């Protein structure tokens, strides 16, 4: 197996070879489905109002990875998305910028040119997104291309086929190699939890990605249903929390796909706050992968500041 980054000795043993990795991942405590879903539903009943809601909305806006991942994407589409990212609500300059714009590798240059000097990151999916079904060489080339084009963040997919057939070493090595290919770019590892299915798998894949050096663990590509769910995000938040307890390092979580409303976003923020902890409540450690969420956040923000609902015609559709 490829050499991992520096790990505390207890964890370094876990990645010594394929069989120790396997033993480590299978030695993680199980996740009880009923229990985690009950906890997620329970935390979902938190009532966030007034100043705390306003703060949540602004925090959520600043955590959005504004995403377009369509076959129909054009430079024009990406440019207008970048404009939206810079000024989400043109009439309200106090609205924070989003965290990043997320595009396919061939659109990275367009996005990077548009976002130069804004502090907004350019994220690119890579590694034969969304299926991940290609050779390692092609995945690495895909990653290098994205970074050369100006991506500051890379969203890779893991080989779910390899994971589900128990070839953890292969998945691990791929992440390590992609991380190397990223250079200074931040690496988000997409687990595609909709294909991993069980919470036990989600926990193992989370740890696998953290051990291999992923800066973020991300739920989904958005191309598979179900995409992000609250209980899955709970399991991943618990994983980064446990990682912090063991290593002192802070790693991030990004739910992606299916989060469309402010109400949903706030439930995720409550989970971040109470499962991982308050130190995760910023866009260095938590992101939303979303395209339509931003507009709902903007509409709800206007409702908070204006005292009444406006409507979808008052926010831009880019």
């Amino acid at each position, binding site marked *: 197996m490829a050499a991992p980054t520096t790990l505390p000795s207890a964890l370094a043993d876990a990645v010594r070879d394929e069989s120790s990795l396997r033993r480590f991942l299978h030695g993680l405590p199980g996740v009880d489905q009923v229990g985690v879903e009950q906890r997620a539903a329970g935390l979902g009943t938190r009532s966030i109002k007034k100043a705390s809601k306003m703060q949540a909305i602004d925090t959520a806006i600043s955590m959005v990875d504004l995403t377009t991942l369509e076959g129909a994407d054009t430079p024009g589409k990406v440019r207008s998305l970048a404009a939206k990212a810079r000024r989400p609500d043109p009439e309200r300059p106090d609205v924070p910028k989003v965290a990043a714009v997320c595009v396919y590798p061939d659109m990275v240059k367009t996005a990077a040119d548009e976002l130069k000097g804004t502090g907004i990151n350019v994220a690119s999916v890579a590694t034969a997104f969304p299926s991940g079904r290609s050779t390692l060489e092609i995945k690495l080339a895909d990653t290098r291309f994205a970074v050369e084009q100006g991506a500051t963040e890379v969203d890779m997919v893991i080989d779910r086929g390899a994971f589900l057939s128990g070839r953890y070493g292969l998945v691990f090595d791929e992440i390590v190699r992609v991380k190397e290919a990223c250079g200074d770019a931040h690496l988000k590892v997409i687990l595609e939890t909709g294909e991993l299915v069980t919470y036990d798998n989600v926990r193992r894949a989370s740890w696998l990605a953290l051990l291999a050096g992923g800066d973020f663990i991300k739920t989904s590509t958005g191309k598979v249903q179900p995409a992000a769910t609250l209980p899955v995000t709970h399991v991943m938040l*618990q994983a980064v929390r446990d990682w912090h307890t063991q290593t002192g390092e802070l790693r991030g979580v990004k739910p992606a796909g299916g989060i469309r409303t402010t109400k949903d976003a706030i439930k995720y923020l409550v989970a971040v706050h109470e499962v991982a902890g308050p130190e995760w409540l910023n866009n260095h450690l938590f992101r939303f992968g979303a395209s339509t969420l931003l507009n709902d956040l903007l509409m709800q923000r206007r409702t908070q500041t204006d005292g009444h609902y406006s409507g979808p015609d008052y926010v831009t559709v880019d």
Partner: protein
Amino acid sequence: MWEYAPAPESRDIANLKPNYRMFVDGQFVEGTGEPLKTVNPATEEVLAEVSTASKEDVDKAVKAARRAYDRTWSKMPGSERAKYIYRIARLIQERSRELAVLESLDNGKPIKESRDVDVPTAAAHFFYHAGWADKLSYAGYGPDPKPLGVAGQVIPWNFPLLMAAWKIAPALACGNTVVLKPAETTPLSALVLAEIIQQADLPPGVVNIIPGAGDIGATLVEHPDVNKVAFTGSTEVGKIIQRQLAGTSKKLTLELGGKAANVVFDDAPLDQAVEGIVNGIFFNQGHVCCAGSRLLVQESVADELLEKLRVRVSTLRVGDPLDKNTDVGAINSREQLTKIQELVESGEGEGASRWTSACPLPDKGFFFAPTVFSNVSQAMRIAREEIFGPVLSVLTFRTPDEAVAKANNTPYGLSAGVWTEKGSRILWMAQRMRAGVVWSNTFNRFDPTAPFGGYQESGFGREGGRTGLEAYLDV
């Protein structure tokens, strides 16, 4: 930092009245006992004045129940009784918000629990038992099981509405009439239930609700014309009642105290076990007879689990019961708070290590911060006595046999929990633990279809499910 703004439910929803009266023979009437003032434990303000029953009033209520039993309720076909009980269930649902707020005001429990657990489960008990009313012949108690007569029921303050539902629903379904005494500190929701019973147009006298102190409960259970006594409350009072009824033909069920063991094995789903432990002991401020108040954790994971537990307990929000974000509300009374404090001091005195959440507590009202004792041994009072508060005692074990031995080493036996991913071990443990309810990989889950009740000093008889019908049938 992100602080949650207060999100209080409006207390106006409770429709609080300055005075409440007892409900006898279909009417709200002034009792001739000394009126009591019921207090909001979160603010110590008086909520309302409630008239109470005297000994003569108890007699009137029992006579009304007897008349209703003889003339209408016992003769009515089950399918007709069911209609009334269904109506009560629906009315509870319709007035659920009012009941939830009232319950939180009077009892101190957080609104999220009264809203999501107490009131819906109370309605569920009426729905479930309404279904039995015309099917008693198929319940396994013979072709045409008969009711017992008048049931005298005495309930505690920890789940005022839910306990009333647990008691009244099966009694009515089986064709009995009821005289129920709610607890002295929490009479309000039972009296709103009486309004609902009036609204549902139940024949007068079928259900009578008489607030009062312990002496009224004693008068009720020893009344010669009561055929069945059901009591939920302390073991101490349960023993007195059992002595009182010895030698009479009255049928008795007792649901008393507990000191449940929540057993966590090293292969448990630890994060969910932490949730279950929290739910087991901090649900309803620990005012739960089946609370998982003794955590038995396998030594090999004890440190890891305790660390996770402390982190999780630190996130519990203690405060205004009406705030929708409150996790732990107020202790029901000063008396109970004093008892908790006294036992906690004994724990410290006997050498257990105390850890208490650093959460802020309100200035007024009866509150106690969630507390976890580790290094507890079986000999300490906090491992043997029921604390009935948000205080957890943590003990460790090495082998499954030791876990069983420690779990069973108590005069109680109401509930238990097992946490392990190994199915065979769950069954092995469930067979050996002397407890009426054994939860596996969960805790404090209640359902009207599942029988509930205890072993030894936790009482006898079952409530809920098909088994629970037996207590109200002449079998």
